């Protein structure tokens, strides 16, 4: 059961993360076309090869419904598989396995997965105040009848920081907490970013002391343990194995996948320190026939340091409650014995909205191809990739492996 590993990632494109103030503004449709063009060039395919489309539906600028139809028409493609994914930070991972599954079902042979996340130009009559208000509430719904509007927002439970902070506090209560180990996650990833000219924090090194001296945002999380939202975007093309063989690069096979959505607010979880990735990772590993020890790298979704810690534990890289010990005992840099987020992670690469999760997929592809430049791993055939949406609400896992 599950994926047979007969679909491969063949093309990637990604905007360099930039601060919103200085990034170009483009319509999402134009970003989709631009990113698709770059990914097709990378793959060595042409527009006519695309017969599947997966796009983010939430916050797509030029449409709130019929998004795949509008995007397909704009691109000039006719597709046998059209899908909207609305899973926050795990959208990227979710897109890749849906594409692979559609290909293995025989529905299509090349699927474009695209996440435009630069800002669009404001229209002449656009209500900027309404847009700003929507930003204030972030991922929380203020609509009448939305449970969050009634039972979260009146108590100030809004945004992501405090939710992740309360998970971290509960973790500390149950298992203890080493702020130095948590800071080391950010520091090791920043080291990796120093070998990645595309990273937002390229050229800015970081020490544990600097993390621990940075501004406390929501106890125990400090600002340097929290991703910086930036403008960007990404596209990935997944193709059938037979088509992949004629593409320009080493095909990266989608060997396993898993997905788990447990709640919107972790407050309603029976155990908020055991995260949905536990189920998703087990499914993905079982499907691939591989195990955590077989992974040559881990590209773990890192909206916060605590996300990385819990993912390491629940995906099976270490025992529950041993995450801090694991982080202390291992060198997490690209030079180290447990290469983690070798592009710098989103903490140092930048988080381009829901495209942020695609940075982890694309880094795994670059490493497996052997195209990772100054941060290339010597052994680079297998990768664990994860995504996390909401407040540990929904998580996904991919097991990727280079074709022989």
């Amino acid at each position, binding site marked *: 059961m599950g994926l047979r590993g007969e679909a491969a990632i063949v093309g990637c494109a990604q905007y360099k993360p930039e601060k919103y103030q200085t990034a170009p503004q483009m319509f999402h449709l134009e970003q989709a076309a631009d990113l698709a063009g770059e990914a097709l060039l990378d793959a060595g395919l042409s527009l006519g090869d695309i017969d599947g489309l997966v796009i983010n539906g939430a916050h797509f600028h030029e449409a709130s419904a019929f998004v795949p139809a509008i995007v397909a028409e704009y691109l000039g493609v006719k597709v046998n598989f059209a899908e909207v994914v609305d899973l926050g930070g795990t959208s990227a991972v979710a897109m890749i396995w849906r594409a692979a599954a559609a290909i293995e079902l025989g529905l299509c042979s090349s699927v474009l997965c695209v996440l435009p996340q630069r800002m669009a130009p404001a229209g002449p009559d656009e209500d900027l105040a309404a847009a700003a208000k929507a930003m*204030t509430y972030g991922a929380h719904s*203020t609509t*009448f*009848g939305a*449970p969050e*509007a*009634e*039972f*979260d*927002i*009146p*108590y*100030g*439970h*809004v*945004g992501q*920081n*405090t939710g992740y*902070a*309360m*998970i971290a*506090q*509960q973790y500390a*209560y149950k298992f203890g907490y080493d702020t130095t180990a948590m800071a080391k996650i950010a520091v090791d990833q920043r080291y990796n970013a120093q070998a990645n000219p595309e990273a937002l924090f390229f050229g800015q090194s970081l020490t544990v002391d600097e993390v621990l001296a940075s*501004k*406390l*945002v*929501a*106890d125990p999380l400090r600002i340097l343990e929290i991703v910086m939202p930036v403008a960007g975007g990404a596209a990935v093309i997944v193709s059938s194995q037979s088509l992949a063989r004629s593409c320009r690069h080493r095909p990266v096979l989608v060997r396993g996948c898993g997905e788990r959505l447990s709640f919107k*607010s972790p*407050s*309603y979880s029976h155990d*908020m320190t055991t995260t949905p990735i536990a189920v998703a990772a087990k499914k993905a590993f079982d499907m691939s026939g591989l195990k955590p020890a077989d992974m040559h790298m881990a590209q773990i979704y890192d909206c916060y340091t605590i996300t990385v810690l819990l993912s390491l534990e629940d995906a099976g890289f270490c025992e529950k409650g041993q995450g801090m010990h694991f982080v202390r005992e291992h060198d997490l840099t690209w030079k180290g014995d447990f290469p983690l987020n070798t592009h710098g992670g989103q903490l140092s690469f930048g988080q381009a909205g829901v495209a942020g999760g695609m940075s982890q997929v694309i880094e795994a592809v670059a490493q497996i191809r052997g195209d990772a430049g100054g941060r290339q791993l010597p052994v680079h055939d297998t990768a664990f990739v994860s995504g996390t949406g909401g407040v540990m609400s929904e998580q996904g896992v991919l097991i990727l492996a280079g074709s022989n």
Partner: protein
Amino acid sequence: MQIPRPDPTAISRPFWDGLRQRIIQVPQCDHCDAWIFYPRRHCTECGSRRLTWRRVSGRATLHSYTFARVATLPAFAELPLQNLAIVTFEEGFNANTSLTGMNADDIHIGMALEPAFDVIDEQGTTRLLFTVANIDPTR
């Protein structure tokens, strides 16, 4: 600034009406006894659609908390230190809330709490906050 007001729905109204009278009532499943919070019309444990509103004491323990050093909304920026809390009612269900009338140093996970009814507007809209229990929960 005004704290965002909860707008009761036909489904949740008994909860909010109860708070105005300083009572806490929550739907309970007739079939499996699960407590359903936030209020819904079906049981999230067994799927039954036979639920009955029942009064609970509000005795709870602190499941987790944090201090928002950056206010989560402008309405909370006036507080000296905004806190957010998740509490576990003695019946076993969790709720998002905030703690009131406590010093930051006195807040710790696992502590016993009791309800504090917080009227936020002239219409009498009431939030369910919590504060340190002044009775021994073991009695």
